[in-house]
Structures are given as structure tokens and as C-alpha cells.
């Protein structure tokens, strides 16, 4: 199963010209700055927006080309909209059952299936709640359940909140629109970078990490990523031992013995730099290193630090001169254990 789209379409005031491919079981992250055309592209794939030219094909079946337009209801697609767009006149379980009912399933059976799906998402107790009564995270999960209840071949997620563990259970083709590098890195295998309506880079995320082709991509994937062995050290903390040094992180509740192949992510903005060894006790990690490079755009500076492990830090341009940071000079980097996000092997 695969999705292949190569389209040109005209949105309100700009043109989106993009191609995107996705395979079953290999989620694609669609990333890009605001106004890049991500939502437009999702609407095109869902059949909600027309294309000017090009093709969209799912499993070899043409959904859109010069002469064809398959209506949204006849595509096997599920969409999770940016702000969820639940039906507020229906309960959560009725929302989830909607796609089954619309396809002609009997009410009782549809409700049963919807309830099972909600149960698998730990939401059965909210089945009769109205959307206005749901928390943001609950509404998010109901929206996802609604989109996958009819088992679509293609799942389109527009800016979901983090917490997409359900994606692992979805066996079809998934495209996830996101701003969040952590989401992109943890959810997807491949990435499509869309800027000003054009694809600026596409490929496996690891390739894009090693050679980002635009400033936006560099910014997005320039995140600290550590892999190694995680062992609890008490006090709710754990040590992640990588090949190039160790860091201290929050200990997951379930962890009682060491675990291999754990990935950890840390945003560069969460790394604080000092000239002297920091004395404050709140940050569990204080690592000494040497500045390898400083990329300063006049407002923000990205500092790459040779240390164990190597780190990337984002600081204001003012801090660079205030701290007297120089390439080749010494620096202390510090970050709190709770800022590190862990991805445990499944």
C-alpha cells in the first residue's frame, strides 16, 4: 500500500506545488513553517480541496488527476483536523461511531465498535461526554479514534498534540503534519519539508539530520538526540549512558532495571550555558566542554559544543557577548533532567 501525490494547487493567495510519497507502516512527517501550505496539502490529499494539475494516487488507484476527482467520502481516508473539529451535538462515542454509521453499519454495532476503540485508548469512561466536556488531550484522542474507526487506508493528522502513541497501532499509511521536532523525530521515519508551498527536502529523517538543506530544516532537526543504556539511580532519576558520555534524566515510573536502546531528546533552547561551573542545584546535568562553532543570526545563536556527550545549545545573541563565548573556548552546559524526553524501545 502506498500513497503517491504530485500536485499543484492554488490556495487563497499562494500556490502549493509539492510531491509526497508514503508507504504503509512508515509514517511521514510533513513539516514546515506557518503558512507553508501544509494544511492545504492535507486538504488536497483528503479530497477537500481541488488540484490545478498533477495526480494523487492511493495503492495505484487515481484519486485526482486532470479528469478525475474522487469525493472525500469515497476515499479511504481519515483526517484529524488541526483543532479537532468534533461534532459538538454528539457524545464522544457517537463521534467515533459516525464514520461507521455513515457507511451504513447498524447503530448498535457501530456504537459497540466505537466503544471498543475508546476502551483501547483508555477513554471508555468518557464515552458519553460531549466534546465541550472533554479535556484537550481527551478530545484529541476522540478525534483520532473517529478518524481511524472505519479503518482507512490513509490517515492524515494535521498538527496533533504530542502523545500519539496510537499511531503505532495504526497499520495504514500515515502523514503527520507537525511543528514539533520531537513529534517528528519520535513518530515518523521519513520527512517532507514544505516551505513557501514548495518541498525543500524529503527523505529519511536521519539523512535530513545529517545534511539539512534549508535554515528551517536545520533548525527543526537540530535537536540533541542521545541513545544508550538507561539505568535507574534512585530519587526518581535515571542515568542514560551513551557511547560518548552520560546524562541524568527523569526515571520512567515503570523502570526497575536497566534498559538498552533508549533514545532521549533535548531541545537546544533548554540547554543553559555558563562560563564557570554552575553552582545551582536544580539542574542535574552540568557538563564541561569546548565550543566547536557559533552560528549567530543577530538574534539567536546556535552553539555546538564538544563535550561528553556533544551538545547543541540555542542562546540569545546578547548572551554570546555577555558570556564571552568564542569558538574553541571553554563553556559549561547545564539542563534539567525533566527537560529530557525519553523514547523507550517498544
Amino acid at each position: 500500500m502506498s500513497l503517491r501525490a504530485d500536485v499543484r494547487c492554488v490556495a487563497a493567495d499562494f500556490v502549493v506545488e509539492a510531491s509526497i510519497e508514503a508507504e504503509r507502516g512508515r509514517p511521514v512527517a510533513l513539516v514546515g513553517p506557518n503558512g507553508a501550505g501544509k494544511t492545504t496539502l492535507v486538504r488536497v490529499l483528503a479530497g477537500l480541496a481541488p488540484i490545478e494539475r498533477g495526480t494523487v494516487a492511493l495503492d495505484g488507484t487515481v484519486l485526482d488527476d486532470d479528469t478525475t476527482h474522487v469525493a472525500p467520502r469515497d476515499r479511504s481516508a481519515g483526517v484529524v483536523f488541526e483543532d479537532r473539529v468534533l461534532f459538538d451535538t454528539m457524545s464522544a462515542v457517537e463521534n467515533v461511531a459516525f464514520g461507521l454509521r455513515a457507511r451504513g453499519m447498524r447503530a448498535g454495532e457501530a456504537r459497540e465498535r466505537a466503544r471498543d476503540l475508546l476502551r483501547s485508548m483508555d477513554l471508555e469512561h468518557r464515552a458519553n461526554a460531549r466534546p465541550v466536556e472533554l479535556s484537550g488531550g481527551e478530545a484529541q484522542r476522540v478525534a483520532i479514534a473517529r478518524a481511524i474507526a472505519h479503518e482507512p487506508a490513509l490517515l492524515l493528522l494535521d498538527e496533533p498534540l504530542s502523545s500519539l502513541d496510537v499511531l503505532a497501532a495504526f497499520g495504514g499509511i500515515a502523514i503527520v503534519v507537525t511543528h514539533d521536532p520531537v513529534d517528528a523525530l519520535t513518530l515518523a521515519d521519513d520527512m517532507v519539508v514544505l516551505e513557501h508551498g514548495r518541498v525543500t527536502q524529503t527523505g529519511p529523517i536521519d539523512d535530513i539530520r545529517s545534511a539539512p538543506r534549508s535554515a528551517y530544516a536545520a533548525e527543526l532537526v537540530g535537536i540533541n538526540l542521545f541513545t544508550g543504556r538507561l539505568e535507574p539511580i534512585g530519587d526518581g532519576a535515571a542515568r542514560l549512558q551513551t557511547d560518548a558520555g552520560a546524562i541524568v534524566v527523569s526515571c520512567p515510573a515503570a523502570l526497575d532495571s536497566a534498559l538498552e536502546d533508549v533514545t532521549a531528546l533535548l531541545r537546544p533552547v533548554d540547554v543553559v550555558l555558563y562560563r564557570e561551573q554552575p553552582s545551582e542545584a536544580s539542574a542535574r546535568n552540568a557538563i564541561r566542554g569546548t565550543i566547536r562553532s557559533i552560528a549567530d543570526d543577530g538574534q539567536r545563536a546556535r552553539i555546538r559544543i564538544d563535550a561528553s556527550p556533544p551538545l547543541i545549545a540555542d542562546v540569545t545573541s546578547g548572551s554570546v557577548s555577555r558570556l564571552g563565548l568564542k569558538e574553541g573556548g571553554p563553556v559549561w552546559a547545564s539542563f534539567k533532567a525533566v527537560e529530557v524526553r525519553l523514547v523507550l524501545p517498544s
Partner: protein
Amino acid sequence: MRDLPGAVKVLAALAVVAVALPLVALAARAPWSDIGRLGASGPRTALFVSIEVSLAAAALSLVFGVPTALVLARSRFPGRSIVRSLALLPLVLPPVVAGVGLLAAFGRRGVLGRGLAAIGIRLPFTTAGAILASAFVATPLLILTVEAGVRALDRRKEDAAETLGASRWYVLRRVTLPALAPQIVAGLVVAWARALGEFGATITFAGNIRGRTQTLPLAVFEAMQTDPGAAILMSLMLVALSLVALVALRGRFLAR
């Protein structure tokens, strides 16, 4: 908020008094000892005709007004603004003109009336005619209310329904109409209240036939010439019915 100029407040107070005064006067002048006369056959018959005509007219305005509102708010076609003006015309048309127009269309020699008569349907001077006249003037109110609701709808709700496999009809039935329920109810109440008070179009097109087309407003008008006390009592009955409409719209017009 900045305080309003005194003159504005005075004018507003005058307006409220001007509205309240006739109602208070009605209650003050009413021959309350004669209240039992409302149970007499004349007023009672007029009340029943009024209820039948106003409810049927409201139902008609629902059946034709909701689709019209949807088309006006959603469809793009040449001449749309002309069609919209036509649909809303009865709002500004003098009711008596509406009555004369209905006669010209559905009267015995009317454009359509002749054909209808041939198949045995007669509208002028019948209860059905009174219903048609009331619906004619009431429907635009429902259209306006519902149209505003359609324009305020989040279309992505319908998009979502469509991606979930819903046919157009299913989207309308399960998503669009339920989301419009508050506006439809409000429009229905306003249209019903307008139909309840209808006078000009009804008397012109349907006449003033006791038991068939004589609604409460027509009965009040007739009684004013012979029995003002009865007219006042029946007016108070209409006030009571109108209060029902206000209560039904509570939260929409009141307590804002």
C-alpha cells in the same frame, strides 16, 4: 465601558415606557368582571382558528424557509442577490399588498388560481388561504435567522463528516441541521409570533369568516366597533400568547 450620554439614556427610557404603557393601559381598562366572556363561542372559536393558522403557517415556513436559507447562504449562482431580495421581500411589503398579490395569484381568476380551481383546490377565503397568507409574511423572518446561523457554521465540521464517508444527505441530517437547531427554533418562534399577529394579508386574501378565517386579530378588530370590552379582553389573550413566544426565546432576546 464608558458611560453613555444622558440624552441617550432618557430616549431609551422613553422608548421602554412607550412600549409598556399600552400594555399597562390594556390591563387597567379591561373589564375583568366580564372575563368569563372569553369562554363564549365567538372568542373561543377565534382563538382556535388563530392557533391552527399560526402553527400551520410556522410549519410551512419551516419546510420552505430552512432550504431557502441553506441555498442563500451556501450556493453561488448568477442572480443570487436578486433571488435573496425576492425571498425577503415580504418583510418590507405592506401586508395588504401581499394579500392583493396573493389574490392576483391564487384568486378565482388568478394566474394560478384558475388551474387550482380546475382540480378542486380553492385558497381565497378558506382556512388554507389564511395559513398561506400568514406563512407568506412569516417565512422571511425564519430565513433571516437560519441564514445567519448557516453563515456562522464551521464548515470543517461538514468536511470532517464527508471524509468519514457521509453522503450529502447524511451530512445535512446528522451534522448541519443539528448544529443549526438553536437558530431553527428561534426562527420558528419568531415566524409563529408573526403569523399569530397577521392581519392585513389575511383579511385581504382570506377574508373575515368566523370559524374559518377569523383569527384573534381579526376578531379584535371587529369587536372594537361593537364591543370594546371584548376587544380588550381578546387583546390580552394575544398578549398572553405572545409572552409564550418571549419565554421560548428566553436567553436569546431576554437577559442579554
